[in-house]
């Protein structure tokens, strides 16, 4: 009986670590070296890119159109020390973030709830299918213009745009996740005495969670896009306005600088979501090759 236990449990890894044969530290070192190599090449690529851009923009192409790294850096420094044409950069960031976060939360909640409900209710899903397909086919960015007319230049029109983008991304995954729940798990829970509601709460929602998280990663990016595009279309504050203004004044460095700020925000959000995912889904076996992304 004991043999059955020791072979597969996590403790086995600890035991293995204690009795490492001589070759293993070598392997660890080699892995570390390899990771160092990966980073070195990454940094080298970025440096090569920036330097070549800087050089060509200085000696060959017109920096008025293409800008150059130093000009962009100077613009960023300028924004963060002296502020932008529309006030402090932090105000712009706060406004865009607020729009994106609200849009994200509302869109994600709506997407998850509707996705799971339709995923479990076959009849409703059949009724709704063509409408959802049609709604998904609408170029949703265009809705930003409509929302400006409906909700005005303030925040709510951007929240609405972000929400619509997030909703569909999350909805389809939640729907699929709720559909692909293991029949066995549901039957087992029912035999154990679970009511319909309990099955939904303890089986369907947790199984759909991995699917939902997969969509949340891209969904915050969509929320930011929605907010920025909304601001682009018409706003009095925000990063989209900043970028739009840069475009209007032929300030290519300003466009790049705005892009960089938005990218950093998206990366930070991605990191937050990954952290939450790791906590919520810690029951999952560690995926093979999980460190490929880090």
């Amino acid at each position, binding site marked *: 009986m004991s043999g059955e236990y020791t072979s*597969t449990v996590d403790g086995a890894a600890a035991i293995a670590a204690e009795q490492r044969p001589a070759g293993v530290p070598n392997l660890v070192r080699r892995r570390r070296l390899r990771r160092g190599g990966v980073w070195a090449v990454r940094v080298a690529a970025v440096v090569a890119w920036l330097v070549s851009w800087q050089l060509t923009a200085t000696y060959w192409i017109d920096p008025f159109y293409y800008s150059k790294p130093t000009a962009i850096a100077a613009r960023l420094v300028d924004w963060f020390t002296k502020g932008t044409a529309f006030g402090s950069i932090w105000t712009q960031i706060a406004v865009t973030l607020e729009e994106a976060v609200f849009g994200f939360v509302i869109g994600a909640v709506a997407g998850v709830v509707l996705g799971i409900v339709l995923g479990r209710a076959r009849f409703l899903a059949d009724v709704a299918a063509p409408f959802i397909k049609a709604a998904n086919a609408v170029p949703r960015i265009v809705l930003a213009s409509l929302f400006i007319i409906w909700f005005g230049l303030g925040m709510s029109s951007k929240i609405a745009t972000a929400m619509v983008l997030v909703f569909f991304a999350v909805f389809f995954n939640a729907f699929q996740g709720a559909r692909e729940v293991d029949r066995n*798990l549901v039957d*087992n829970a029912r035999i154990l005495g679970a009511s319909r509601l309990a099955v939904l709460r303890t089986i369907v929602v947790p199984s759909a969670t991995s699917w939902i998280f997969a969509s949340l990663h891209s969904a915050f990016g969509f929320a930011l896009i929605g907010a920025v595009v909304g601001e682009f279309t018409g706003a009095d504050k925000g990063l989209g306005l900043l970028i739009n203004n840069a475009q209007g004044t032929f300030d290519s460095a300003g466009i790049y600088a705005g892009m960089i700020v938005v990218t950093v925000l998206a990366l930070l959000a991605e990191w937050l979501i990954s952290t939450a995912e790791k906590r919520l889904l810690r029951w999952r076996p560690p995926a093979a090759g999980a460190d490929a992304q880090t």
Partner: protein
Amino acid sequence: MTDPVIELRGATKRFPTGTGGAHTAVRDLTMRVAAGEFVALVGPTGCGKSTTLSLVSGLEPASDGEVLVRGEPVRAIPPGVGYMFQNDAILPWRSVLDNVAAGPRYRGVGKAEARDRAAAWVERVGLAGFAKYYPHQLSGGMRKRVALAQTLVNEPQILLMDEPFSALDVQTRALMQDELLRLWAGTGAAVVFVTHDLEEAIALADKVVVMTASPATVKGVFAVPLERPRTVEEVRLTEQFLRVYREVWDSLRVEVAAAREEASRVG
């Protein structure tokens, strides 16, 4: 014979096929299981043994005939039924303890009480040190133990088991069979144990029901006059065991051959 806890009278189950026809999984099935009786259903692979369990559990309604549990026709999942599925059905996102506590929780027992009961069962199936582990950290045999505890914690009076140990290696399977007999002894629960392994069937059961090739129906019922308590590895070697084995195998062999022929014809 006392009143049976499970009784099938001419039960038939048809499933719609993709092409618009109907596939008959079991037909005209008649059998009885008494309280505290351990019945094994054997038959060729894919003949519809599992369907029989779905009918009794109320997960699938019968197309024809009657399925009675404690004299009542089955319309929903009858109370006091436990079902151990062939595939892992434990929740991967719950620890061993919380998996076992699921049944009592679903049945409205408070969290602390449910965990107490679960802890006792986790210990009884020999997983005391693993209560906090997640299923993916356990071996196949240990996951089966979790499933067994999860089912038994509800103290079912009818225990349905669908090839529960078929995915295990030979040694682990023998261990689990003994474990099952030990845990079942004295509960007074009726067991319907589906398997395609005749040795397993005879080693565990009081009665072996041989089913025909698809569509399945009862071909013969054989009593297993082996004494309890049994140890699976030992009982296998007795003269009596071999006698029963020969007798049942004579009946089963024809069906297995028929199923093979069917499979090669279709495939």
